């Protein structure tokens, strides 16, 4: 029987809560652990109530994801788009860490836009306007210097 992702999510909640409760038992004072143990216990009880319900509805047809035009989207396509979105974000954050906010943002905007068939002129314009706006708002306005990447700091 293929187990739905929602069941895995419930299992993740169980494992996370169990870990948190076990760790809290090592805290020095009673006040540090009491509320965690109480909330954690409630979570475990509720999850144990919810889990059979989730398993019971396994066989029923799920409502698919639809786009704005009301057309159903193939679940495989949904998964690919989610993974793609997450991958882009992760790569962007890694870029910020290495190259700094400004450089990484320019590269991210241009590469994402062009790979999604936005013209190069539009992509560069959007990147320029975005960086200029963040510069004015954050650096000049709020006096928050941008994150300097590890590589550029070393230089």
């Amino acid at each position: 029987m293929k187990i739905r992702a929602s069941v895995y999510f419930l299992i993740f909640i169980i494992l996370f809560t169990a870990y948190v409760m076990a760790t809290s038992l090592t805290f020095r004072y009673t006040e540090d652990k009491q509320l965690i143990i109480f909330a954690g216990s409630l979570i475990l009880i509720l999850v144990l109530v919810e889990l059979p319900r989730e398993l019971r509805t396994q066989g029923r047809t799920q409502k698919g994801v639809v786009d704005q035009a009301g057309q159903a989207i193939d679940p495989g396509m949904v998964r690919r788009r989610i993974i793609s979105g997450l991958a882009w974000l992760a790569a962007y954050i890694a870029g910020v860490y290495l190259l700094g906010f400004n450089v990484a943002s320019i590269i991210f905007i241009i590469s994402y836009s062009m790979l999604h068939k936005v013209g190069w002129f539009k992509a560069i314009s959007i990147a320029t306007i975005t960086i200029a706006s963040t510069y004015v708002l954050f650096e000049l306005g709020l006096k928050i210097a941008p994150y300097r990447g590890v590589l550029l700091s070393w230089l």
Partner: protein
Amino acid sequence: MKTRVLFMLALSICLVTILTLFAWGCAPKSTTLAPADFYKSKTVDWTSAGAPGGNVDQVTRIMQPVLAKQLGTTVTVTSRQGGGGLEGHNHVWFAEADGTHLNLWDSFALVTELAFEPGSAKYAPAKFSYIIGFPQTDRFMFFVAKDSPYTTIEKLKSGKNLKMGGTSPTGGYSMATYSVASLLGLDAKVLVGLKGAADIALRIAQGEIAGAVMAASQGPIYADKLKPIFGLGSKRSPLYPDVPALSELAKFQDPVQNLALKLGDTAFSPLRAVFTGPGVPQERIDYLREIFSKKVIPEVRTDLQKAFSGGQTTVDLMKLEDFISGANVTRDTLAYWNEREQLKKIFDKMIADYRM
């Protein structure tokens, strides 16, 4: 199409790297420049390790534009709050030792962070390069409600099941309150976790706690609800010249007690200093010291007095020469860092005895 985009991506990364290397290569080598010229060619990064809008942040931002004008360069204030100041201090500790990374903090926080929060702090406070220190403009005092029956030390000592308050578990107010309970041998327990002087004042006024230690400058704000009955240490507060200091009211023979009392004159008073990282060339420290003491402080001292003393400007609390010696006082205070093991034992016992 994809190949073209990937090619352009690679090209842009190469271009950025080459330009950065070129700019770095063209930059004048700092070791050959006089301090005044050096600072003109650099951006000074001043870490604000406190919460935005808090006292430390305010004082930093008051001085920043004047410092920028006097140095003839850009001075940016970067908020690096986190870990009660640890984030900011760690940053300055590891930053390049060229004198362009400044910080402002109070010395007691530096000591307690290390004495009681091992592991996260990567620095040794006495090894920072101190530029100027702000002399003690404030002292810690023990406050009770206006209508409290505990108006003297004797009445405090005769009180039963007293409830007192403190802020963060190892913060200055809490440590000072524990010290009071221990020094006077009170039948008391200290509840920590209150959110600052305002919260302490409210709880005392509401009758939930009998008293607590706060900075003297907070007193006038809550003058209709609270009153101080003694000050910590051996000196009276200029804001309350009629309120005696603890050493006038009680004698302590025990060396441990005396250490705790000594803290009332030094670490238990908000002693702030501007500092930079270790290993900065002495000529730059001297240059910054001169700029701060002769140009920056005179221009902003009234505003600083207001910021430090909670608006109480009736007393001239700062002599100009004290700012220079303040750097030395800070360093001396941080000598307690050498006694941190002993300090930790003392306070661990106080916490065990008096924690609610």
